[in-house]
């Protein structure tokens, strides 16, 4: 897939189109205009990424957002590495989206999803650091009247011939006046001193003292608070509401309709607003979907499993002939449910509107998407809008492409010009108005020949397309196909299928229920890895072969896939007896450009499954901060296993049933397996892989395969609580 951005003088359709299953979020922004000074970082700017102050302190600009994944630290390490500065003097700042627009997108994409924070910007941010170093060196050389080749930089100090020495801060002013070198040469990663090291991340102290200001915590002078309720049935509208019933309640300032679909109460405090909203009688026009249930949706998807029409994602050989000529056919149907992100910090945004300016403070995975939402909702031109990014209390895909809460906050603030309005969603609103992990079913049919070789595989997906809802232009370009559906099983690229099977067909019958889908950590690899990797075990069992050996035979042409699988097998002790009572399972995938594998050890007592240990391997080509990668791997398993065991958003009467943690549980420390991660970057000149998402997909199938090894039972629909299975 290749999305060519439409460029004209006024607008630029922002599209971060990666190879394979990459996606582009769509919105229009006008670029170019008055340049405003950055709020902080006053001091000589050396290119757009680096500011060096006279006291030698270094401010590194970060375009991507921090939501716990450590991207700001990793990106700063890459810049500092090329800059050759003293790491202890480094801090960071976010250039605002408004400044990015004014400076014609000097900082590139702000999108922090698809595990692309580092992998898609490492080259230009490193170049930013290298250019700044060259400017500093040139300034020193000019001052000393010596050739620049005789000067070098290390640890924020420049040295030259004849024991000459100065610091970055002393020459920064002069350096800032020099032209910015284009495409400087970058260091060989084997010479890295800051990048590639387990450096401590920024922001820890504020997060353990309660000082970190999240969107929920923001306080502005004269601020009021808003609570909101949108039609619980997707597609429904507000018919009427009886404001008089609550307008006299303590603290209440305003009761208002927000667009056609929601009602908000504004009060002095949020608790007052929420209390009044709960007491407000609202009549909904529930629209066309008020009778839809999970069962109806499941029936629709089931019909797609054998439908004539389907979009092809990956194909070779002749699958029909292979299945017709099979000595043995193996068939299974799997189903994956709707799930909510449930960020610990529910959705929120704070807006202040006047006729001359609209400002929004928001935890966002994409400052530019937030900015576009402010423009659209305020009706003001770009030079009168601004977005201030706050670190996120969790993102996981909910806070990037979707800026519904920003729209709402601006609409409310427009009704109260000059007064800052903080809009907070309750947990119930957050779970009712998700952008849900899409539903998908999958029918797999495998052909084994008389020697038990896998000669054919048909994987038929039937279910919901995210892009059809979120980025229909891409689906149109693809003549109705959603390429993202094939993440992890695609024919090439960052989500390429790893197995070589002589006859293969992977196709998708698109079935789009009315529930709004979204990008949920890992996106479509979550279900695709379960479908594929559990079925590989089913095939191995049918073939009477070991699960590892069966896979190895099919991975000969994909050495990096094979390498991560071998690494976990070796570490877990595959092929040797497991400790008493423990059973093992494997899985692997290529996702977001990284190669990942897992080996799980579980025990089963009655209906309780204890996950004792998961060995995980990841090859992201380069590892910028191994310590943060470790945390992303273990954290992704908590997210993925919580989904596997507990999480389903069921639909009844057109709306979501599960509205809080009492019906939508999440793993606790008692259930946490021991996670051992093997970070094995292959290096080289190829594209880098992501870190935040890829490993999420391998935990569930590894655990399911271990469960099958323990019990002989295959579970093929999720979550496991629906089968009375508990995570111990």
């Amino acid at each position, binding site marked *: 897939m290749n999305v060519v951005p439409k460029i004209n003088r006024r607008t630029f359709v922002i599209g971060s189109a990666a190879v394979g299953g990459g996606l582009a979020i769509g919105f229009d922004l006008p670029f170019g205009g008055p340049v405003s000074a950055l709020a902080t970082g006053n001091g000589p700017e050396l290119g757009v990424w680096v500011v060096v102050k006279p006291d030698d302190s270094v401010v590194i600009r970060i375009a991507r957002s921090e939501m716990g994944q450590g991207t700001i630290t990793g990106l700063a390490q890459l810049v500092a590495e090329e800059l050759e500065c003293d790491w202890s003097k480094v801090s960071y700042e976010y250039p605002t989206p408004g400044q990015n627009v004014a400076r014609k997108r000097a900082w590139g994409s702000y999108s922090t999803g698809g595990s692309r924070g580092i992998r898609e910007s490492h080259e230009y941010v490193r170049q930013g650091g290298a250019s700044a170093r060259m400017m500093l060196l040139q300034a020193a050389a000019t001052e000393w009247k010596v050739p620049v080749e005789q000067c070098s930089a290390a640890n924020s100090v420049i040295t030259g011939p004849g024991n000459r020495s100065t610091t970055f801060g002393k020459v920064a002013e002069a350096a800032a006046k020099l032209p910015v070198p284009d495409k400087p040469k970058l260091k060989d990663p084997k010479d890295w001193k800051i990048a590639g090291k387990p450096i401590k991340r920024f922001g820890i102290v504020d997060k353990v003292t309660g000082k970190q200001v999240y969107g929920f915590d923001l*306080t502005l002078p004269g601020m009021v608070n808003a609570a909101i309720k949108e039609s619980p049935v997707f597609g429904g509208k507000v018919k009427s509401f009886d404001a008089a019933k609550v307008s006299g309640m303590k603290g209440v300032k305003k009761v208002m309709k927000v667009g056609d679909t929601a009602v908000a109460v504004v009060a002095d405090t949020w608790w007052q607003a929420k209390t009044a909203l709960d007491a407000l009688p609202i009549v909904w026009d529930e629209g066309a979907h008020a009778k839809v249930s999970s069962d109806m949706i499941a029936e629709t998807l089931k019909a797609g499993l054998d439908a004539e029409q389907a979009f092809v994602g990956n194909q070779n050989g002749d699958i029909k002939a292979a299945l017709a000529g099979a000595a043995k056919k193996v068939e299974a149907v799997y189903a994956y449910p709707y799930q909510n992100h449930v960020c610990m910090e529910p959705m929120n945004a704070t807006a202040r509107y006047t006729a001359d300016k609209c400002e929004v403070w928001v935890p966002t995975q994409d400052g530019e998407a937030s900015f576009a939402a402010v423009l659209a909702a305020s009706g003001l031109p770009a030079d009168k809008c601004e977005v201030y990014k706050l670190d996120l209390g969790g993102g996981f895909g909910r806070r990037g492409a979707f800026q519904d809460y920003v729209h709402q906050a601006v609409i409310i603030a427009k009704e109260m010009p000059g007064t800052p309005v903080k809009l907070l969603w309750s947990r119930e609103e957050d779970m009712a108005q998700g952008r849900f992990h899409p539903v998908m079913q999958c029918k797999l049919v495998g052909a084994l020949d008389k020697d038990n070789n896998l000669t054919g595989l048909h994987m038929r997906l039937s279910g919901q397309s995210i892009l059809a809802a979120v980025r229909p232009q891409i689906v149109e370009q693809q003549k109705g196909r959603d390429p993202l559906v094939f993440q992890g099983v695609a024919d090439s690229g960052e989500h390429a299928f790893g197995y070589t099977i002589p006859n293969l067909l992977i196709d998708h019958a698109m079935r789009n229920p009315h529930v709004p889908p979204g990008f949920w950590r890992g996106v479509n690899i979550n279900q695709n890895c379960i479908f594929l990797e559990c079925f590989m075990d089913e095939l191995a069992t049918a073939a009477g072969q070991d699960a590892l050996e069966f896979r190895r035979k099919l991975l000969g042409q994909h050495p990096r896939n094979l390498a991560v699988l071998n690494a976990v097998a070796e570490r877990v002790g595959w092929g040797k007896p497991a400790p008493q009572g423990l059973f093992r399972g494997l899985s692997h995938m290529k996702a977001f450009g990284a190669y990942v594998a897992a080996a799980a050890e579980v025990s089963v007592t009655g209906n309780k499954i204890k996950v004792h240990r998961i060995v995980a391997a990841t090859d992201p080509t380069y590892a910028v901060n191994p310590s943060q990668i470790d*945390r992303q791997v273990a954290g992704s398993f908590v997210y993925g296993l919580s989904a596997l065991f507990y999480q389903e958003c069921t639909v009844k009467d057109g709306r979501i049933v599960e509205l809080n943690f009492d019906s939508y549980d999440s793993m*606790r420390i008692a259930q946490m397996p021991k996670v051992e991660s093997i970070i094995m970057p292959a290096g080289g000149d190829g594209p880098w892989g992501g870190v935040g998402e890829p490993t999420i997909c391998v935990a569930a199938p590894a655990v399911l395969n271990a469960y099958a090894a323990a019990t002989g039972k295959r579970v093929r629909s999720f979550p496991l609580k629906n089968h009375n299975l508990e995570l111990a």
Partner: protein
Amino acid sequence: MARLTINGKTHDVDVDPTTPLLWAIRENVGLTGTKYGCGIAMCGACTVHVDGVATRSCAMAVSDAVGKQITTIEGLAQNGTLHRVQQAWIAHEVPQCGYCQSGMIMAAAELLKNTPKPTDADIDNAITNICRCGTFQQVRAAIHAAANA
């Protein structure tokens, strides 16, 4: 008007007595380190100490907190020195997004007060907070480190 004692200071807050302690702490007193996560005492992000007991403040009415000693994350450090749990949290780089960590730290501090050398099973029983980032491996290591500090 209710009189609350938070981190050793008294605050007169003008709220309905049924208001959850969490929201009085956050909105009326202005201490925002204590977080809202669910409002039904499931997630633990709002954990504070009430007379020394780790308590989910979203499920306690202001009227029930009157006359009691309330400690929030902002009051955990003593005389400018961070609590050993906070120090261990820094050393082990526990937080990812950090939103649940105030509650997690308050729960851990109470555990160590009652059980100075907790076993893994003690930790499993005492720490029931939800963390969506999945920091549990570091949480466990940091609690053991704080116990041995």
